[in-house]
């Protein structure tokens, strides 16, 4: 099975994506992650103004299968949160790189080791898919 891995994004090994938009970074979970989790039923995101630390949990995502931590691929301050997801989490499954975005961050410079699209695709395949 092949997953949508947009070439212009960077990826964490914990299956989050990062998109550069001007001085800010937008973060979400990948198509692979949403497929593995199945239908998302609940999400807990940080508040605007919260500081996130690379490699540490910034929220929780829950599907009918499991509840998982969301790990920050970068460090920085949260400047916006996708509030629409509180009422309906369906966009995360349907459009993980678009309407299903999670948070927008003003980066502090610290980041996890991030992968490009080719390396992330290989990393997904390595895990048996």
């Amino acid at each position, binding site marked *: *099975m092949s997953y949508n891995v947009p070439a212009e994004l960077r990826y964490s090994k914990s299956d989050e994506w990062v998109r550069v938009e001007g001085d800010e970074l937008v973060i979400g979970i990948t198509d692979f992650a949403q497929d*593995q989790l199945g*239908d998302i*039923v*609940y999400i807990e995101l940080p508040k605007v103004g919260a500081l996130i630390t690379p490699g540490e949990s910034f929220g929780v995502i*829950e599907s*009918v*299968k*499991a509840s*998982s931590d969301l790990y920050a691929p970068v460090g920085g301050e949260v400047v916006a949160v996708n509030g629409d997801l509180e009422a*309906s*989490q369906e966009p995360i499954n349907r459009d993980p790189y678009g309407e299903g975005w999670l948070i927008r961050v003003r980066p502090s410079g610290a980041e996890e080791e991030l992968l490009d699209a080719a390396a992330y695709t290989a990393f997904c395949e390595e*895990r*048996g*898919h």
Partner: protein
Amino acid sequence: MNTYEPHIYELSTPGKHGASLPMLDVPESTLPADLLRQDGLADFPELTEPEVVRHYTRISQRNYSVDTGYYPLGSCTMKWNPKLNEEAARMAGFAAAHPLQDAADAQGALQLIYELQEYLGEIAGFPAVSLQPAAGAHGEFAGILVFRAYHLDRGDHDRVEVLVPTSAHGTNPATAAMTGLKVVEVKGDARGNVDLDDLRAKVSPRTAGMMLTNPNTLGLFDEQIVEICEIVHSVGGLMYGDGANFNAILGIAKPGELGFDFMHYNLHKTFSTPHGGGGPGSGAVGCSAALAPFLPGPVVVKNADGSYALANPEKAIGRMKAFHGNFGMLVRAWTYIRTLGAAGLREVSEMAVLNANYVRVKLKDVYPQAIDRICMHESVLKGQIAGAPKDVRTLDIAKRLIDYGFHPPTIYFPLIVSEALMIEPTETESKQTLDVFIDTMLQIAREAVETPELLHAAPTTAPVRRVDEVRAARQPILRYDREAIARVRSE
């Protein structure tokens, strides 16, 4: 029989009642208005006595239990609950004993508690045992409270981290969080053991201890257990043993000798007391001599004159439960241990491991193994069947098993295995039962390739068809609400 049972509110007819009271023959008196219930009564279900009894009897008969069928639920050890245990627990001297009776009048019950403490200590290699906790997670909570009390008692105030492997039961990190400590995850290696390099990197003077299940939730015995204990001990941390999988090593390995400092026993798993809705459970705990003063009390001690008394360990963390744990379960576990004896308990584990490997080997060419190793009392396979459409998932396989009359195994756990299917046959199932289960699993795998729609539609023979789990989680209706139910049905 196998039809949908309406909700008791739906069976209600206004004006019906189950009891006929005599005519009022005293002056009528009304309660003060502020004591009268203002809402809800109008909606109270009204039925006759036979309607109520039949409704609940029908529901009870839909229950799936070890008394009605095979129950290969991984990590839960749904073994047979011998009927002899029930005989013992119903003996009037045990069943009718009152917890406030004087110790002098309850010597038999206290003797049983004392002996069970001794037996459990011997089986797991611990000098001290408390039977207070009422469930596995309750035992975990007791254990981490004991760890904290031990460190603080020594003036060691900085130990705020609990190490937990990624394969752990969810109760382990939850326990650490409940006690106010910080969870630090430790990775597994390619053989399913704890990754020693990652463990070495994560232990520190901040380590309160590590919580480990061995065999772990992959059904694999951690081959490096002695080194793991040494690494954690080398920084002053303590080892917590989660006894959920103790059924695999009775009479073969003693956690106290492997290096664990503390462990909970699930009497409702390993020691055959009823489980789940048939409980209550019992999460007895055992520990090393160094931790013994902190155990929850009271425990039973034997006096020099041979009588038994209740006593609190010197620095006890306190009570975990009213009175003396779930006493009826203690009677059952005592009976189980005495019925089998030392050789019999070892045979329990040998048969549990043999049965699990029999099922594993028969299925692994069709349902890939998560990690290709000989397993202990359970094995983790994957619902990824070669040649089946990708939209056939482990969930569909589990639902199809219901059509064939089996309780599905644990699915999607442990979380580190995609499409996990965790099968624990237990020692109490015969080869014939296992063969029927294996044949059914292989039949379902063929269906997954040839007629996948059968799996997607399953269950088709159960009173309730495939439930919409996503919607139930997103829009839960948690109490009877006529309007909400009508709205859902109309959509």
